[in-house]
C-alpha cells in the first residue's frame, strides 16, 4: 500500500489552471521534496493534500484512506506545517499545543509537549505568547504542533525558511527519524542543494504537472533548474 497516492489532481483558480492532472505516489518511509519555481503550485498541492482545499477533480489516498470518503481518519494520519504558523497569537505555546493535543485526543499531553518542544528547540519559549515570539520561534512552534500526534505523513511547506542553522539541523534530525521509523515526509523548499541531500525523491512541478519525478541520487541542482523552465507553449497567466 502507498503512503500517499495522488491521482489526476486538477485545481484551477478562476481563470488560471494551476494544477493539471498531478499524479504521483510515495512509499512508506520515503522522504520526497516538491520543487518548482515561484507560483508553480507547490503550496496549492500541499493545501489539497492537507484537505484544506478541495481539488476540482482527482483523488488522494493517504495510507489507503480516501480523503473524500473518510476525511477524519486521513487527517489523523497527517500532520502539516504550511506557510502560516496556524497558532493562536494570544495563547502561550504550551496552551496552543495543549489545545491541539486535546483535539487529536492524545494521552498524557504534558510529557508529549516537553518531548516535542525539545525536538524543535522551543523549550525556553513554551510559556511565551505566540504573538511575542520571533519569526523563527513561531515556525518552530508550528512544527511542534504538527509533530505532536506523530503523524504517518508529514507535509512541510518551506519548513526551513526563517529557521537558523541550529534548528535547520533539528529539522534534518526529524527527517532522519521519520525515514528510519518508516514514516513519510513530503516537503517543498527553494534550497535545492539541501533538499537533494536530505530527500530520497524529487518531484518537480512545472506548468501545473509533474515535469520530473526521480530519485535524488542521480540528480544535481542543474538537472532540477532545467526542469523548472517551461515544457509547454506558455499558456495564459500561470507561472
Amino acid at each position: 500500500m502507498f503512503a500517499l497516492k495522488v491521482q489526476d489532481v486538477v485545481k484551477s483558480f478562476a481563470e488560471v489552471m494551476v494544477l493539471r492532472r498531478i499524479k504521483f505516489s510515495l512509499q512508506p518511509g520515503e522522504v520526497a521534496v516538491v520543487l518548482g519555481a515561484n507560483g508553480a503550485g507547490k503550496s496549492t498541492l500541499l493545501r489539497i493534500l492537507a484537505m484544506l482545499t478541495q481539488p476540482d477533480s482527482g483523488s488522494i489516498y493517504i495510507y489507503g484512506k480516501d480523503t473524500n470518503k473518510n476525511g477524519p481518519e486521513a487527517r489523523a494520519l497527517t500532520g502539516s506545517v504550511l506557510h502560516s504558523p496556524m497558532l493562536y497569537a494570544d495563547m502561550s505555546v504550551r496552551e496552543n499545543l495543549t489545545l491541539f493535543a486535546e483535539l487529536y485526543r492524545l494521552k498524557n499531553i504534558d510529557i508529549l509537549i516537553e518531548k516535542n518542544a525539545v525536538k524543535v528547540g522551543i523549550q525556553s519559549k513554551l510559556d511565551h505568547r505566540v504573538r511575542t515570539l520571533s519569526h523563527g520561534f513561531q515556525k518552530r512552534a508550528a512544527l511542534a504542533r504538527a509533530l505532536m500526534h506523530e503523524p504517518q505523513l508529514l507535509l512541510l511547506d518551506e519548513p526551513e525558511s526563517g529557521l537558523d542553522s541550529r534548528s535547520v539541523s533539528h529539522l534534518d534530525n526529524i527527517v532522519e527519524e521519520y525515514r528510519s521509523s518508516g514514516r513519510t515526509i513530503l516537503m517543498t523548499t527553494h534550497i535545492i542543494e539541501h533538499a537533494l541531500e536530505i530527500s530520497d525523491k524529487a518531484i518537480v512541478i512545472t506548468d501545473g504537472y509533474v515535469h520530473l519525478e526521480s530519485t535524488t541520487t542521480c540528480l544535481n541542482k542543474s538537472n532540477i533548474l532545467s526542469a523548472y523552465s517551461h515544457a509547454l507553449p506558455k499558456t495564459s497567466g500561470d507561472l
Partner: protein
Amino acid sequence: MTKAINLLVSPIALSAVLMGTTLWLIFVWVPTETNQGAVQRILYLHVPIAWGAMMGIVVVSAGSFLYLWKKNEIWDRLAVASAEVGVVFGGLALLTGMIWARPVWAVWWTGEAKLTTTLILFFIYVAYLMFRAYFPPGTQRQRLAAIIAIIGAIDTPIIYFAANLWSQAHPPLITGPAADSESSLGTSLGVVLLASTISFTLLFILLVKIRYKIRKSEDEIKQLKQNHELDSVKLHNISQARGTS
C-alpha cells in the same frame, strides 16, 4: 433534466399574449372600483407580483436543497436564476404596495404582517445574492448560498407568523390590507386577478429560464477552457513518451 425544465417553460409568445390581455383586462375591461377609485387597479399587479416574490423563495430553496443533495450544477443555476428574478419581484411588491398604500392608507408603510414579511423576504434575497457576489468563486460558494436559501425559506413562514402575532399585539392605527377589498366589483375582480396571476407566473418562469440559460452557457465556456488546457497536457505527455521510447 433540462427537458423537465423545458416542459415547465412555455415560449415567450404565449406569455406576451397573456400579458397583453391581462393589461387590457386591468386597464380597460374591469370597471373602476368605487370606494378606492383608479388606484385600486394596482391590486391586479400588486397581488400577483407579491405572490411571485413568495413563489421565488420556494423555488430558490427547492433548487438549493436539490443541489446539496444531488450536487448537480443544474439545481444551483436554477436557484440563482430564480433568486435574481425573485428579488426583482420582491422589490416590485414593495413598490406597488407602497404606491397603493399611500392613497388608501395615507402612509407609505405600516407594520402590517404581510408588509413586514415582504420586506424581510426582500432582505433575505439581497443577502443571498450579495453573499454569492462577495464569496470567492468555487463549489463552496454554491453550497453556502444554498444553505442561506434554505434557511431563508424556512424562516419566511416563521417571520410571517411572528409578524402576524406582532401586528395584533399593536393593532396599526390604519387598517391593513384585506381591509375593504370586498368591494363593488364582485366576481370581475376575481377573474382579472386570476388572469394576471397566471400571466405573471408565466413571466416569472420565463425570466428564470433566460437567466438560467445565461448561467449555463457561462459554465460551459469555463468547462471548455479547462478541457482545452488539459488536452494540451495530454498531448505533451504523449510527445514525452515518444521522446523517451
